[in-house]
């Protein structure tokens, strides 16, 4: 009995426990409402189904959430420009490739150009936050609005379509592969980031700077450079998400690429159990958070909720999930529990703290 208890405690004590439960609950709700939710069909040599949709559409969000996690951890503030930055990258890629039957520049060049643009945007944000000490929200507000303008400039305010089929591979399926390419891209980004953070001490540096920049400086960490780097990386992630997005539709619409995605990305980080005030982070938590958000979006569609009304429902669920994880609520519940148990006269059980 006692052992059992400690086992449960060990599981529930894990940082990722609550985010995982939340995702689980969202999926269960779907199963009840839409019994064929978990069905996967093969149409034209590719998987189709709600689950595949979640993975496919969620991958962009996962990638953004990875970058956002590091920014939040190191600087204690969110980068609200990621949606616009992904539009900049997408637009630049498409504008470089052109609307002719053949690419104007080699495909790889356009990708590199787009990634570079994303990193430059990140560097701009990072410079404002790390070196000029501007509050992240305000610093990144500039590109949130100006980014769309840059993207419009790149596309000449037209919706540009890229004709060659190969352009769509990145955002949909590679010929002969049943699994959406986006899954591989998202996996690649998450894995590389995770490995780098694990194999080097960067993960520890980022958390250290996020928790106590003063102390970090005194023990030789270059807080400014670390924050700057996180923003560049976040810009890079946003650019990758933008590339996936334009490839999926085969077009660049500067107004709609990554629209409102910054809000989803921030919510994903929060749902993943990360403090938005910075410090300790869990990359996998953010990934789970991103999947949860996308599962929510997809299931709302499955419930036939009109897209215009979806944000309301999403907001309610996000609030609930974040509230469940709030330490205040936990403390309050614990207080309630203690009151109840002390009323029943305690049986010498340990007091959990």
């Amino acid at each position, binding site marked *: 009995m006692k052992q059992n208890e400690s086992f449960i405690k060990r599981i529930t004590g894990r940082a990722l426990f609550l985010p995982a439960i939340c995702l689980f609950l969202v999926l269960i709700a779907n199963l009840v409402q839409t019994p064929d939710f978990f069905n996967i069909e093969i149409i034209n040599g590719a998987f189709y189904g709600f689950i595949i949709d979640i993975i496919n559409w969620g991958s962009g969000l996962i990638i953004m959430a990875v970058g956002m996690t590091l920014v939040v951890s190191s600087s204690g503030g969110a980068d609200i420009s990621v949606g616009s930055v992904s539009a900049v990258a997408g637009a630049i890629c498409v504008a470089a490739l052109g609307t002719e039957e053949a690419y104007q520049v080699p495909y790889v060049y356009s990708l590199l150009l787009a990634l570079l643009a994303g990193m430059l945007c990140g560097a701009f944000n990072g410079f404002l936050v790390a070196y000029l000490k501007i509050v992240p929200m305000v610093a990144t507000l500039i590109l949130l609005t100006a980014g769309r303008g840059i993207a419009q400039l790149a596309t000449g305010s037209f919706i540009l379509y890229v004709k060659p089929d190969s352009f769509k591979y990145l955002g949909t399926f590679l010929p002969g592969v049943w699994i959406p390419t986006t899954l591989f891209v998202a996996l690649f980004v998450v894995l590389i980031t995770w490995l780098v953070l694990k*194999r*080097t*001490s*960067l993960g*520890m*540096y980022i*958390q*250290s700077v996020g*928790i*106590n920049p*003063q*102390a*970090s*400086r*005194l*023990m*030789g*960490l*270059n807080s400014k450079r670390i924050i700057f780097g996180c923003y560049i990386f976040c810009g890079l992630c946003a650019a990758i998400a933008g590339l996936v997005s334009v490839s999926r539709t085969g077009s660049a619409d500067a107004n709609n690429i990554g629209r409102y995605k910054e809000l989803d990305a921030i919510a994903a980080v929060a749902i993943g159990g990360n403090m938005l005030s910075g*410090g*300790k982070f869990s990359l996998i938590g953010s990934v789970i958070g991103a999947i949860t958000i996308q599962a929510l979006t997809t299931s709302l569609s499955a419930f036939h909720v009109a897209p215009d009304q979806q944000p309301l429902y999403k907001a309610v669920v996000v609030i609930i999930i974040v509230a469940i994880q709030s330490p205040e609520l936990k403390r309050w519940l614990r207080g309630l529990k203690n009151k109840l148990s002390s009323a029943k006269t305690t049986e010498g059980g340990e007091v959990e703290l």
Partner: protein
Amino acid sequence: MSNANEILKMRHITKNFLGVRALHNVDFTLRSGEIHALMGENGAGKSTLIKVLTGAEEFETGTIMLEGHSHPIINRSPQEAQHNGISTVYQEVNLCPNLSVAENVFIGREPKSKVGGIDWKTMNKKALEVFQTLDIKIDVTLTLDHYSVAIQQMVAIARAVDISAKVLILDEPTSSLDDSETKKLFDLMKKLKAQGLGIIFVTHYLDQVYEVCDRITVLRNGELVGEYEVENLPRLQLVAKMMGKEFDDLAEVKHASVDSSDENLETIIEATGLGCSGKVKPFDLTIKKGDVIGLAGLLGSGRSELARTIYGADKPDSGELKMKGKRIKVHKTLDAMKAGMAFLPENRKEEGIISDLTVRENIILALQATKGALRRLSRKEQEEFTDRYIDLLKIKTPDRDIPVKQLSGGNQQKVILARWLLTDPDLLILDEPTRGIDVGTKTEIQKLVINLANEGKTVVFISSEIEEMLRTCSRMIVMRDTMKVGELADDEITQVNIMKAIAGGAGS
């Protein structure tokens, strides 16, 4: 009121913070037309007394009598205190830099025009009158940020005096002023005093106390030590009272001297004219291998700042620094670490621990920083190092992987010590390593310092407790008013000598 001159009488004030006694039975009396210094070391209760008086904090027992009130008053907020005639001006000016000087003086009580808007003409005229009576030449229509901190402070004072002129509290007003600005402030204070105002002056600069003050109240450990006329209390006595030593019966504690006079010893640090403007005036300092150097001085004397300047925590802006004969320029603290320095800062919470990271991470961070992010210490190495120091320093922790914030203060301090010892430094700078930790750990840390010196390490040791430094240091640097004023070695290191040097001036 017994004495017509007395405008403020605080009697038997007691206040506890979470069971810790902050003020115990403290009396304080202010007369009209005087400048009264409130003195005491860190944690003496100065700021608590001010907060109680201005309503920023509640107090448990005691009375505050104010002239013109037949009953004791209780201020529930600084606004209420101001209404009752008690105004405070802090070191950081709490005004709006983007509003005009006149607006700042009248904010919240602007003269209104007939239609209900602000009557700018009247306001500017009235503001000008306020400054004319104080002999301050200022364009009241310019925004406040046009002016220096000193002028901004005077605007704050003008505002305070204009609202209610009975008691004016100046809390460390001179900390961010230069000498000429301080002089101007003093002129203003004397003028206000002549107008019959009672001024409470909180400062830690001894010179300034003797320059402008009439009386001194000394607090120590939350208790009243006494109230003195300035002319009856020589500097040395003042220092002794603040530190809690009766000058006459000082027990002589003599340090078992390390032979530091040996000329053959390697020079670790050689600073010439090193300074950091506003924090510590240029100083020369030579530290030999195996020395334990104590930095003595009152709070704000520049003892921490001197250490910080050597380490580069505050960037020096003059002079040069040689470490082991090689000139080093510290741009970032990592340069100092690579040269072989380690620095345990004064504020453990703000500058020491990374609260949410584990004990292990906190210990290996500095070593990892010197190695660079790419050459990560393996988990096994990290655990070995951590266990070694948990053992060596007897850090009490249930697990090496729990967040360091769950440890007690003393153990957190040991974790930071471990962090620096792990980097194997030649020079270890310890700024108040024993503050706020239990007595047992204090002795352990003192022993550790002596052991380190015996192993050939060099230590710079800062403490507010003189005995602690007497026990551990082989040489003492004395600081006063952000200046290095003297060095004591071997037989000269006695409590009396140190206090004399700290007090300086004519009192000795």
